[in-house]
């Protein structure tokens, strides 16, 4: 009899445990005392996790009743996978990040309207376009990012090249040939390091430069377009060929970390096509090199010379399903972060990025690359980021086709044709 009772209890206990695991546990249920609010933030930029945590700690100090829990998963699709599983399992974060209109469309039901926030009010012109539906804003821009050809100043100087003179494709080609002819003396292994195994470098970033004019630099126009004409495909081919021909080989198994850490930061490559997000990595390898020795060149585009693609990579979205008080706390937090004096100060100290909000002082930006790109952005020498308006996964697929081209298994015409068709069929 006693035995049966014990089994019953064990059974009940294990049931209870299971129930506890399966329960809603969305992290905001509060921990006993009613005033404590836990903000569960989940986002896809693992690069600024540490700095963000420090910033959050500062906020917690000033607002003892708010506790910020921060989760980050790196790399576009991995983050999106985790986010989706968190939503479908009921473990919804209170704040999450989305990249643009097509992601917003999936999560529209969960996105809190933030049109009236101060942090949206002070956002720079154009930075809200990708997250606005019918004049309502559903997200707060993280920051801005830009990319181009990041070059090693010392190598350029030794080769006698003035980066300011490089505007057109012909200028660039000439500079590349000069560099290539002096490889030995300059101590470089190749002019470029093209990470062929990263489909997004070609499919998203490179293609964006040549597709943006077609959509008037407007991500929403790309998002709403049923077709892509690819008018400038020849220019893209030319640029890809140039990068491939003068790159450290073999390109097809080179990945991002090899490109940035192994080749560029150690001075083996003179130039790489990347963005200001590589700054923390460069800084870790060699702070002096990162600060003094890198600059950014625009990717040449006919008729649009001297422009750098700048855009908002991510938006903070508040989960409208969260408890009222949690939503309010999240709003307060972002107002503090982007629109209050002390918040801005902390953000500038901690995060190396190009601000997407007013009231930031460009001189206080920590990263040399971000400062350079911010300058382009102030002078409005920018190309839009329309790749966030591609059909879902189109960039990856197109990137894969360019890999086939690089491997010599597919003609360029064929690559472009496949790109056009896939765009149409997924719209």
């Amino acid at each position: 009899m006693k035995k049966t009772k014990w089994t019953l209890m064990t059974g009940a206990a294990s049931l209870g445990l299971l129930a506890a695991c399966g329960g809603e546990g969305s992290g905001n249920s509060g921990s006993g005392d009613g005033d404590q609010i836990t903000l569960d933030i989940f986002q896809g930029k693992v690069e600024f996790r540490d700095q963000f945590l420090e910033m959050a700690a500062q906020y917690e100090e000033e607002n003892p009743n708010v506790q910020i829990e921060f989760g980050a998963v790196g790399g576009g699709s991995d983050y999106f996978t985790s986010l989706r599983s968190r939503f479908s399992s009921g473990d919804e974060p209170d704040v999450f990040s989305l990249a643009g209109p097509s992601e917003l469309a999936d999560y529209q039901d969960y996105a809190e309207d933030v049109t009236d926030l101060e942090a949206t009010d002070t956002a720079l012109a154009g930075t809200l376009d990708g997250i606005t539906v019918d004049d309502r804003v559903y997200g707060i821009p993280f920051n801005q990012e830009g990319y181009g050809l990041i070059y090693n100043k010392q190598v350029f100087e030794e080769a006698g090249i003035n980066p300011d003179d490089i505007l057109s494709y012909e200028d660039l080609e000439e500079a590349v040939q000069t560099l290539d002819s002096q490889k030995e003396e300059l101590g470089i292994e190749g002019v470029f390091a093209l990470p062929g195994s990263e489909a997004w470098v070609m499919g998203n970033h490179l293609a964006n430069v040549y597709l943006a004019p077609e959509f008037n630099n407007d991500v929403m126009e790309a998002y709403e377009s049923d077709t892509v004409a690819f008018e400038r495909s020849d220019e893209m081919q030319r640029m890809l060929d140039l990068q491939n021909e003068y790159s450290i080989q073999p390109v097809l198994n080179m990945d991002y970390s090899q490109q940035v850490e192994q080749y560029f930061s150690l001075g083996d490559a003179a130039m790489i096509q990347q963005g200001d997000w590589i700054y923390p990595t460069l800084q870790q390898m060699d702070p002096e090199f990162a600060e003094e020795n890198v600059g950014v060149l625009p990717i040449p585009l006919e008729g649009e010379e001297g422009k750098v693609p700048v855009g908002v990579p991510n938006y903070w979205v508040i989960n409208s399903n969260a408890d009222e008080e949690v939503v309010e706390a999240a709003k307060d937090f972002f107002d503090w972060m982007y629109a209050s004096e002390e918040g801005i100060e902390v953000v500038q100290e901690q995060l190396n990025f190009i601000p997407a909000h007013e009231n930031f002082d460009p001189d206080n930006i920590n990263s040399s690359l971000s400062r350079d790109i911010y300058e382009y952005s102030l002078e409005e020498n920018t190309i839009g980021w329309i790749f966030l308006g591609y059909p879902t996964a189109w960039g990856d697929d197109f990137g894969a086709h360019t890999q086939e081209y690089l491997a010599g298994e597919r003609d360029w015409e064929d690559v472009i044709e496949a790109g056009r068709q896939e765009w149409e069929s997924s719209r």
Partner: protein
Amino acid sequence: MRNKDLTFWLFLTPVIIALGAVVVIPLLAGFFYSFTDWNGLTFNNFLGLDHYMRLLDDGRFLSSLWFTIQFSVVTVLLLNVFGLGLALLVTQKLKSSNLLRTIFFMPNLIGGLILGFIWQFIFISVFSDLGDLFGIAGLDGWLTTGTTGFWGLVILTTWQLAGYIMIIYIAYLQSIPEELLEAAKVDGANPFQRFRNVTFPLVAPAFTISMFLTLSTSFKIYDQNLALTDGGPFNSTEMVAMNIVYTAFSSNEMAYGQAKAVIFFIFVAVIAVSQVYYNKKKEVEM
């Protein structure tokens, strides 16, 4: 009925609940969702067999399936050859046999992701350095083509799992009675004949288990694939599991991915069951 009293079922409850929650319910839910337009969060319509019809024209899925089949055939073969070979080696009366067993088993203790990255380094950097050193062009540019990617995956998987299969063979090899081998020896059988006619038939049950294990593992491989090649270059080394993940999570077609998973499940189940059935028939009783 002794085993049907209350206590029996109570003891089983946790397992049944756990199994139901993580295996049975998801499986049934998966079947269900594959007939709808589920996007991971909500679904609105029943589509019937639409997803399954679409599969027939999905070139990328079919080529990943074909790649997986090729991969499985080669790895199953290699794994069993190496597994049995290693087992025979360490059951010889060698001084170092215990050490060797540990060493051969070791790769199996490392996670597939880490192994993938280690071998990526070997294939890309070490291979090309060796190639430059000895002037062997074939060692350059590994993982830049579908073929080298394929063999890279085969080598990685074989290296990782051979030790595990070895353990299974060891267990069976050690259970073979000495008398049988001795009797064969007295009858004048040479070592090869002894292996062919005595040892081999008696380890046949191990084949059943190992074949089943290797077949189902090599079909379902994901982490090694992800870490080593990530499907690249241009998706030529993408296996079915990875294709399913890509469809579901990158292309955001949850229900379509689910339909692929259902087909994949049936495929693996049929192959595994028929293989076990066939091998069982061939086993000898001692």
